[in-house]
């Protein structure tokens, strides 16, 4: 590994120990074109989200020593309202996983879903429009940041209920198997979500029924303000796989190629009828739990260590070292993506809000009665 902090050290920091189940899958690396596409997707996530700063403006109402409000108060006066959870720092996971998927494969996501959507192929315009609640948004403005759906892209939505996405992906995988398609499904979940009962129930069923689903746990060491260390009895979520007799693997979530290799193996396994896999990607969010500093990290030392393993920088360095990317390419890519984000902001801002009578209504039910 080319980064300063070795992988073992990193995993020690990340998890308090290297899991017994850790396997570094050895698949052939993707061709250059694919590598560059992966880099582009990582940059797309990064720059899309960086641009959001300032678009939302939360006000905090809590007084010091308040026991009874809570950290969440997402009413915003900005052009983006409501809660926005940033993915910055975790880009290698979404991209490494989705690069192993086909367009028709399914993905369910969590509250922290921008990265998954973009990695699965989402366009900036309708993403940004959704965040601004416009009718040109992926969910016609009805969903918002946590609920970006695209039937076309197999995006079965982010989810505001921690852990709910796990059975949903399991159901999509069930559907694929039932219908005899080659599709697989991926559930993205946080390490916090792995403490929900749905995790247990879904993994057991997926294992029993050998469903083509991959559970991707992004262990970013925190669930909102709660350190994983005080919420998970054991440090490695991957070790929970053993309870269901399925493979569980700890992966370096800052290394997009490591993620991709593990994902490729799991997808291959799922497509060929081998059943589910649990991948735990050790990672870190570089910003606060939600936009504008809500649930900010309070351990600067730890943050500094992780910032040294920026997944984009690591990957760019590798691509440059391997002669796949020049410094000029790198800069050009960045500029291009930034420009595309800007276009999306303009597009979204000039899009109309949905009108009340355009709101999707379950046919046969009455909105006003």
């Amino acid at each position: 590994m080319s980064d300063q902090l070795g992988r073992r050290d990193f995993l020690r920091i990340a998890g308090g120990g290297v899991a017994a189940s850790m396997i570094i899958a050895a698949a052939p690396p993707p061709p250059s074109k694919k590598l560059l596409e992966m880099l582009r997707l990582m940059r797309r996530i990064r720059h899309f989200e960086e641009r959001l700063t300032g678009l939302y403006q939360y006000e905090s109402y809590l007084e010091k020593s308040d026991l009874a409000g809570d950290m969440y108060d997402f009413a915003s006066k900005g052009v983006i309202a409501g809660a926005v959870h940033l993915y910055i720092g975790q880009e290698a996971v979404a991209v490494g996983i989705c690069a192993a998927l086909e367009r028709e494969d399914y993905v369910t996501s969590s509250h922290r879903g921008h990265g998954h959507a973009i990695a699965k192929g989402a366009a900036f315009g309708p993403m940004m429009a959704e965040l601004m609640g416009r009718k040109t948004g992926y969910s016609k403005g009805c969903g918002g940041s946590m609920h970006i759906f695209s039937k076309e892209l197999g995006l079965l939505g982010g989810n505001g209920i921690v852990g709910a996405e796990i059975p949903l992906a399991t159901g999509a995988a069930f559907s694929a198997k039932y219908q005899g398609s080659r599709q697989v499904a991926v559930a993205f979940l946080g390490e916090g979500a792995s403490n929900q009962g749905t995790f247990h129930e879904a993994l057991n069923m997926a294992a029993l029924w050998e469903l083509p689903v991959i559970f991707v746990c992004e262990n970013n060491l925190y669930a909102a303000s709660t350190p994983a260390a005080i919420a998970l009895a054991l440090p490695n979520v991957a070790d929970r796989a053993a309870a269901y007799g399925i493979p569980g693997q700890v992966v370096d979530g800052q290394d997009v190629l490591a993620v991709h290799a593990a994902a490729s193996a799991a997808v291959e396994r799922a497509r060929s009828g081998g059943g589910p896999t649990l991948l735990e990607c050790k990672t870190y969010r570089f910003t606060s739990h939600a936009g504008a500093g809500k649930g900010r990290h309070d351990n600067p030392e730890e943050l500094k260590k992780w910032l040294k393993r920026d997944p984009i920088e690591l990957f760019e360095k590798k691509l440059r070292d391997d002669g796949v990317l020049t410094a000029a390419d790198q800069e050009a890519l960045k500029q291009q993506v930034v420009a595309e984000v800007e276009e999306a902001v303009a597009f979204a801002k000039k899009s109309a809000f949905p009108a009340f009578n355009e709101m999707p209504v379950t046919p046969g039910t009455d909105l006003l009665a």
Partner: protein
Amino acid sequence: MRELTYTQAISEAIREEMKRDETVFQIGEDIGPVRTRSSLWKQFMKNRAWQTPISESGFVGLSVGAAMTGLRPITVIMYCDFVGVCMDPIVNQAAKIHLMSGGQIKVPMVIRTPAGAGTREGGHHSGSLESWFVHSPGLKVVMPSDPYDAKGLMKSAIRDDGPVIYIQNRILHRLGKQQCPEGEWLVPLGKADVKRAGTDITVVGISTGVMKALEAAEKLAGKISVEVVDPRTLVPLDVDTILASVKKTGHLLVVHDAPRRGGVGAEIIRRVVERGFGSLKKAPRVLGGVNTAMPYSPPLEDACLPDANVIVKAIRDMLS
């Protein structure tokens, strides 16, 4: 014509719809007949019946995911009370995904659950929770009171493109058979049925409430003429039929097993009062279950539920 029980009627509907549409399947606990692990999937496929672990939250969520991607699950919650462990996939997922996805994604699924009190099963097996579902936008709510409706509504529920809560009733399970036509029929969602015509008072019965109201009507026959209306579906609710009846009778009584406080009786009164206030000669009333978890002891349980005698008394009171 031939005779059908309530459960036969539902079974027939499911079988016919499974035949008609390959994407229809049942999933739930103890729905048999699989006994062994080998070729599990193949065995399930044979009857299109997935026998699940005791993981309601997991398998309802799985059903939602399946419904989002082309299938039409009929998901069985063995007792209505057990929805406590899986409200999330029902009300936050199944019910909301259509809106949250901007109308892109439909969730065609039926959640079938036996409910009802009076079977001496105590506090955890006697719930009727239709009121929770009525208050959860995005769901339709169906409560058939006889075999004919049970079949026709099940077929409509399966064909509906949104999530439908189908509440069957354990007491009705073992009622006598009903004369039914051969072949298939549909009962549309959102169409009430006047189960007995009358002129003095409108009694709206929910599920077993219909049976009890009919019994009361019979007792009063010759003295008071009772019209019994069965909404059959609570969402959508056919207020027009109820209003037409109230316009005629001037009196409204709603009967259900669920606790009176916050029950659907209140909702029906709100709807009727809103448009038919002028037609009402007296205050409309609700006879519901007592506001308590259901006690096990048979005399206590009986005292906690409305029956035909209580209905007769209430009607006499209201018309005196």
